[in-house]
């Protein structure tokens, strides 16, 4: 006889309070990054040179802007999930584990927002 409530079974959450979200988000971002990452590397190859004017003109194009926003946000998400697993596996002290996970979360949020702001600045207003 199972002591789990029907609601608990439907939610699919074990004692860790989440189900397959972590695993699934890693897979979804993997597929997204396959497309976005290759797009980024191919775009870099297609630039005539890497002077500021060339790069900012490319980044200022609406399509590049959208793709770069998607790329950076997806990297931040995927990287957060991956670093989280590494920290959980290799950092053992209970306090240092929580602190390092917090630092990783804050750092990823910071980098994601910094990237968004930089891309938007080039997209909307150009450089100073």
């Amino acid at each position, binding site marked *: 006889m199972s002591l789990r409530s029907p609601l608990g079974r439907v939610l699919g959450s074990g004692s860790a309070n989440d189900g397959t979200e972590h695993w699934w988000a890693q897979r979804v971002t993997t597929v997204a990054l396959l497309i976005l990452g290759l797009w980024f590397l191919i775009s870099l190859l297609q630039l005539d040179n890497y002077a500021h004017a060339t790069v900012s003109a490319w980044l200022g194009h609406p399509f590049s802007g959208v793709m770069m926003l998607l790329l950076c946000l997806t990297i931040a998400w995927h990287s957060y999930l991956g670093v989280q697993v*590494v920290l959980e596996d290799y950092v053992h002290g209970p306090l240092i584990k929580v602190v390092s996970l917090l630092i990783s979360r804050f750092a990823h949020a910071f980098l994601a927002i910094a*990237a968004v702001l930089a891309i938007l600045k080039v997209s909307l207003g150009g450089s100073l």
Partner: protein
Amino acid sequence: MSNEGRPLSPHLSVYRWPITMTLSILHRMTGVALSIGFIALVVWLEAVALGASSYASLSVWMSSGIGQLLLLGWCFSFFFHLSNGVRHLFWDAGRGFEKSQANASSWMVLVATFVLTAAYWLVLGGML
């Protein structure tokens, strides 16, 4: 609740080191390297947004020996993590679990990584 002195299940040291283990740890190491690379990507985007002079100073740094070595390392990490990520997606689909298949796909990932890294680096440098 002390865990000390309890028997442990056989760990890494009891196995002859197979190629699949090398790829497993390389996947994590390249993942962490790419997370650090994300910081560099954000710095690059910031430099573009800040303007030509900031971008020029970053360009000087990026074309230095250490800068080029880091970029090559991130290039290698990207193609390894990408190739091995595709291998993981095949596993997620329930394919390629036989020992011989896992060994064969290990070598395929390594060959793909070196070919893609070399090809990208040469095309980027205008040598191909």
